[in-house]
């Protein structure tokens, strides 16, 4: 229990963050009024966002312990607790979630026209579950929220989605659920082995046999790699992204994908360090495959949402690359890049959604040459596109730079293999940007298009703010995670033990 820090100034702040959105759904169950549902949900998510600010303000950057911890017994006979807390790895993800939700509500303001209260209920339940996943320190609590989140997300895609929503939503659900089934078995096994405790810090840094670690790692890998998604497991992502409503795409890209990479950092590395070392080369090359594959596929897309979805595969490849080079630059870059991807890709999906609300088409062809009539829109779009391929001065540059620096330290071959991915990102993003801003001689008539209204500008401004803040002054963000990451890697290298020897024997 010495890994926990109970912060007396803010006794129930994290629980408030989790349960406020859930409590907000109660009123929506009884009041069936569209306008009220919109304002109420916006209010609830905004209050949650404001309440999360003290957490980051009071966060102690000098300790790797879990902070703001709350601990209650939940199911005594199995020793399951309700215990939550944040550390340097999860705090940024919590902030990302709370800050992005009000913007998702705003983005659905006019887009969602049918069954508005039900939509808002789904959004609020999603927020509670997502925050809970990042805060949970009991592995059963984590698993319950991780699975429970599938239901509202399934409904978001399945009810309010596009033409192929049925296919997309079922695929999303089945892939994720099938992936996490073995995680459940792994959880129960860990519970038995660790003296009947589901407490996550109790499971870390134990000396499990290499065989056990291998099976555990495979169970973790299947669950998390599907969620990320890593290269051969990515096929659910484009379908889900394309069919989901804008808010759904944003939540999916900004928060849900991060749960996979968060899972690697929280579970795979600390619980199975030796197996991680063993499997590291394969995971790294899968990441490279994802980066290159995502880039080439994005280059060929005519559908803007699909293009961004495949670019996500590439970007998340960079994140897993950073995590599995297992050095400080790599991991810190990966965490920062998780946030960056959430900001940039979320913003890009919002931009596509805004065009879609006007033209009712996601085809690149029908959106060519809008620059002349929507100057504000293309200004925003340009910044986010530049950010997406890591232009210096924007947030992704910092993240990708750190990841590549870490990769160079690990292996030059690997780093050289990743570089084409960065070039490809520039290629597909500039291609899209060029078509949308200028197009060609055969542009459709776009003169009827209205530029962004105040609401839409308000949605995009916070994204732009963070693009430049992280791009120009990333130090505060890195400070938040530094101690936790250092601690994680120090412990990791101490526990690599024999596995390293074995690997070195094989590779040298």
């Amino acid at each position: 229990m010495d890994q926990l820090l109970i912060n007396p100034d803010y006794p129930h702040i994290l629980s408030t963050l989790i349960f406020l959105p859930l409590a907000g759904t109660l009123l929506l169950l009884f009041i069936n009024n569209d306008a009220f549902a919109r304002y109420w949900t916006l209010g609830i998510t905004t209050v949650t966002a404001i309440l999360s600010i003290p957490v980051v303000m009071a966060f102690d950057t000098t300790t790797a312990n879990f902070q703001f911890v709350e601990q209650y017994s939940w199911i005594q006979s199995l020793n399951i607790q309700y215990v939550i807390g944040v550390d340097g790895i999860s705090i940024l993800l919590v902030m990302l979630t709370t800050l992005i939700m009000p913007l998702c509500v705003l983005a659905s303001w006019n887009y969602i026209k049918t069954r508005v209260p039900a939509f808002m209920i789904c959004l609020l339940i999603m927020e509670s579950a997502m925050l809970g996943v990042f805060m949970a320190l009991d592995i059963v609590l984590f698993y319950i929220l991780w699975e429970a989140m599938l239901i509202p997300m399934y409904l978001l895609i399945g009810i309010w989605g596009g033409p192929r929503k049925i296919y997309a939503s079922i695929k999303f659900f089945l892939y994720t659920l099938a992936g996490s089934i073995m995680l459940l078995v792994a959880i129960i096994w860990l519970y038995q082995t660790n003296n009947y405790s589901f407490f996550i810090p109790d499971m870390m840094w134990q000396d499990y046999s290499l065989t056990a670690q291998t099976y555990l790692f495979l169970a973790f890998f299947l669950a998390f790699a599907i969620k990320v998604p890593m290269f051969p497991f990515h096929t659910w992502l484009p379908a889900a992204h394309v069919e989901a409503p804008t808010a759904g795409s944003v939540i999916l890209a900004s928060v849900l994908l991060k749960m996979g990479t968060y899972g690697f950092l929280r579970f795979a590395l600390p619980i199975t360090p030796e197996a991680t070392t063993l499997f590291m080369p394969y995971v790294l090359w899968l990441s490279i495959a994802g980066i290159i594959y995502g880039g080439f596929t994005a280059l060929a897309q005519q559908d803007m949402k699909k293009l961004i979805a495949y670019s996500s595969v590439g970007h998340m490849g960079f994140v897993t690359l950073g995590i599995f080079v297992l050095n400080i630059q790599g991991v810190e870059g990966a965490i920062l890049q998780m946030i960056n991807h959430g900001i940039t890709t979320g913003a890009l999906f919002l931009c596509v959604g805004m065009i879609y609300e006007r033209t009712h088409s996601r085809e690149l062809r029908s959106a060519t040459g809008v620059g002349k009539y929507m100057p504000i829109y293309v200004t925003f779009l340009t910044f986010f596109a530049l950010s997406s391929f890591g232009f210096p001065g924007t947030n992704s540059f910092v993240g990708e730079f750190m990841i590549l620096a870490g990769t160079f330290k690990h292996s030059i071959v690997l780093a050289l293999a990743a570089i084409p991915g960065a070039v490809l990102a520039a290629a597909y993003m500039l291609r899209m940007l060029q078509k949308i801003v200028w197009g060609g001689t055969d542009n459709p008539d776009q003169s009827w298009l209205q530029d962004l209204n105040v609401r839409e500008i308000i949605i995009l401004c916070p994204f732009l703010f963070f693009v430049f803040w992280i791009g120009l002054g990333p130090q505060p963000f890195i400070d938040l995670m530094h101690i936790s990451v250092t601690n994680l890697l120090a412990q990791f290298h101490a526990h690599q033990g024999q596995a390293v020897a074995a690997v070195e024997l094989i590779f040298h």
Partner: protein
Amino acid sequence: MQFLPELTLLGAGLVIFLLSLGKTDIDKMKTFAIILGTITFGATLLSWDQEGTLFFGSYQVDLYSQVFKILIAGAMLVVLILGRQLKDIKKSVHPEYYLFLFISVLGLMMLVSSIELLAIFVALELSSFAVYIMVAMRNDSGSSRFQMEAGIKYLLFGVTATGFMLFGMSYMFGLTGSTQLSVVMSKLSYMYAQPAAIVAILMVLAGFFYKLAIFPFHFWVPDVYEGAANETTAFIASVPKLAAVALLIRIISMVNGEGQVIVNVLMACAILSMFYGNLSALIQTDLKRLLGFSGIAHAGFVLLGILTFQLSGYANAIYYISGYVVMNLACFLVICSITSHGENVQINDLSGLHKRSPLLALTLAVALFALAGIPPFVGFMGKFMILTGALKQGFLIMVILAALNTAIAIFYYLSVIRVTYCSDPNNHGRINSNLFTKTASIVLMLIIIIMGVIPQPFLNFATSTVQAIM
């Protein structure tokens, strides 16, 4: 007082019988039946802390039996409410239908208290024969005699299973010279090395496997579910399973875990039930058949809890079957409410249900997600407890296979939810449900959620219940 619930049921049956002799207003009688059901439920609650032995030691009244009686009476009440209209049963036989329903429940209540082989047999037959007739009481649609086929199938399979059971009982008597369950089991425990003892125990269990629909005694399930009226299926799918689990636990808790052969056979039955049920359910288009196959799979899970031979395992099994009954009744509530004449429900008939009746659609979705084992509903907690208990005993392979089954099962549950939520109501009109149905669906949903989120009190209760017979 100790015999109060049974007497109430018997009285209720007699009252209905007397009413059926004269010319009675059918609608009034239905309300009357619900009132009688409520009284029975009240009677079980009143006598929950009774203890004692009746009928020369063949009938045990203890916390264990009384809790199961409460569950049975509660489930019966829900069946009465959701099947209030008896849409597909001939008007003229409605009183008799209720008579048989009460008689069957009476048999089940006697079953959970029976601790003597012949009493078990009599109680089981009393409950079964009433149901055989209820199955065949459906209207003859299109003169295909569908319901007769179902009734005959149910009867033949039932009689076969009973035959197995009686044969096993004769072995038990032959080996031990007694029909008292406790005497029989304690004497048998010295004979686990002998094939005769193992055969005897397994054959007696066969009778309950049939009720619970565990492989290889499941063959009646799909056709009977499909052929019986919706209300009858709701009854068959829920109430007898409670009693079957009660007796299975009573018998198995007396077998000690040394009987390795028995454990192996039970394991094989559990796993085969799961795979058979889930794989067959994948291709069903009739909702009742689908639920039937899913019930086979769930019975496998219950058996996985029981075969740990641990107190906690029995408690988990009780928790699981109670949750299963609630989820199942919620599904049947929707099935009974959406048909206009009580016809069978194809999955496609549910299309656009979320627009036709949002509450029923939500009820169905919650129940199916729960059956699929998605948190935070009771289905997940039950599965989680059972898997944890099984792994504690070292059944790693079993746990992995059971977990795989969860992944298979999600597909067919999801395909029903998909039709409910993601398609348009082509040509299907709105469904107006009355206050009774609405209240019942909200209550069932709340139970599903509360049992899933706060399982501890329920588990404690289940544990203390089981302790009463250990």
